[in-house]
């Protein structure tokens, strides 16, 4: 399912049957049919083509958030866990403060402050998504820190950076990857939520959440406007959740209880 998402995003122009931005007011709010598989929206744009192009936006968000959040979380978590002491206390306090908000509310606040746009939505999501990763990385680091081979490396005079990078980071990777995968599902939902509230991608971008928001006005008569973008979000986010869940069972059964 996720491979399908990537393929769709990569070949969006080829798969799309219509130009996602092409308006055709004469053909507005058309039911799903042979010409428009998922129907058209209030401006006569082909919904299927917009969804296909929207996949690119979704993937971009996921990708950007993940490459920002993964390293930050890893860095904060391993450094805090490895060094301990006051550094650990401070870093974990900061993490806790971020964790004491539901992530959507915090992203809302950030976007409100930065101004609504797709880029700001990505920044806001990234800002709120690193703390759980950091917590996990710290917990993992703590379990490895006292291991013999780390002590051995220390005795050989390896610098802490080197130890963290060479020995601890690789050990954290499996559970971190699981967490990031599960995180992607949340990121998709948060991004869609921001788009829905008009705080994320702005029209006419074919972002799925924003499409639902505009479709809402026509919902009662034209169900297809909201149904298909929602299904798209559901499928992708379910895909990541199932993948993460499967990875969790396959890679480390003991991590089940950690948040």
């Amino acid at each position: 399912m996720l491979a399908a998402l990537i393929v769709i995003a990569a070949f969006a122009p080829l798969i799309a049957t219509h130009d996602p931005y092409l308006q055709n007011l004469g053909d507005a709010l058309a039911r799903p049919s042979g010409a428009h598989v998922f129907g058209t929206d209030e401006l006569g744009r082909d919904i299927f083509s917009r969804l296909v192009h929207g996949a690119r936006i979704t993937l971009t968000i996921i990708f950007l958030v993940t490459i920002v959040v993964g390293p930050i979380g890893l860095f904060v978590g391993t450094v805090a866990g490895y060094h301990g002491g006051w550094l650990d206390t401070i870093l974990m306090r900061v993490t806790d403060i971020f964790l004491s908000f539901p992530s959507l509310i915090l992203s809302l606040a950030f976007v409100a402050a930065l101004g609504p746009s797709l880029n700001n939505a990505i920044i806001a999501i990234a800002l709120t998504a690193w703390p759980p990763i950091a917590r996990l990385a710290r917990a993992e680091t703590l379990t490895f820190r006292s291991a013999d081979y780390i002590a051995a490396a220390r005795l050989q005079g390896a610098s802490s950076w080197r130890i963290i990078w060479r020995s601890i980071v690789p050990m954290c990777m499996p559970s971190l990857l699981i967490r990031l995968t599960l995180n992607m599902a949340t990121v998709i939902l948060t991004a869609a939520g921001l788009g829905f509230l008009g705080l994320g991608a702005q029209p006419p971008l074919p972002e799925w959440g924003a499409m639902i928001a505009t479709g809402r006005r026509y919902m009662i008569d034209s169900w297809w406007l909201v149904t298909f973008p929602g299904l798209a979000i559901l499928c992708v986010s379910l895909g990541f959740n199932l993948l993460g869940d499967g990875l969790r069972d396959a890679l480390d059964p003991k991590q089940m209880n950690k948040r």
Partner: protein
Amino acid sequence: MRRAVFGQATGIIVTLLGLLILTFVIGRIMPVDPVRAIVGEDAPREVYDRVFRQLGLDRPVWEQFLLYLRDVLRFDFGTSIRTGQPVLEDIKRVLPATIELATFAIIIGASLGIAMGVTAAVNKDRWPDHVIRIVSLMGHSMPIFWTGMIGLLIFYAALGWVGGSGRMSQFYIGMVPETTGFLLIDSAIAGEWDVFKSALRHLILPASLLGYSSAAYITRMTRSFMLDQLGQEYVTTARVKGLSSRQTVWRHAFANIRVQLVTIVALAYGSLLEGAVLIETVFAWPGFGQYLTSNLLIGDMNAVMTCVLVVGVIFIGLNILSDLLYRVFDPRTR
């Protein structure tokens, strides 16, 4: 014990302080000029400067923060530009609607999640376990605002089983005096059972959807706690005594995870508030979430930051509460 309480209290204060710093900083980085927001676009220079000083914007940042801190300690969060009311008053007015919704939702979500989690654990790796995994992950993967709309389309527009938007039918609005702000309670006090019914019909759909979405987390945690317990030796003891597997599961194994579940449910309640923001928009629910989003869209930062602060405080409060409950209910920690 006393040390632990002391440590925890310090922790809470530090977190609260951090919360304030965070909201302060977010309030700082906004591109909108707060003075212009108050005095308007074409106010004369001296008016602008006066307000600029009034807001303390001419002082160093740390002093501004102290001023902010002072205001907060006095429970003075400024007035909302949109409603012209003190923000705190506004929030007090809208919060009950959200709490009513969220509480109903958590009752539904917790019952569903716990039932599914226990069933999944008892039937580990058999078909009920797999079905439950999919069902609960579905709830976790659905964009709640979309589910809300589809729910309205199906159960309200097509089937007519539930009420539509709002907390009650237009017809009843203003019929019961606001005593507590909780419509179900107010209408019951007033003896207006029609209003009560209408409120319930309006509440049930958003609350169920919200509950369903929160059930995933509760299900997963219940399942893993339960699996832990079912592997314990005392479970065998109960079976040896001749208890049926149902009695064993509920009277013994489940009794042992109740305390942990309280924590989980408290956390889930907190994240329900997140879904509430979105679903209130869909259902035109006059609650906290709607208040927050409508202020967001017009850039009323005073109101927005206060809302964020309130959510943060509720979150911390829930954490403390679950900690306390843990201590009260687990004989081993007494």
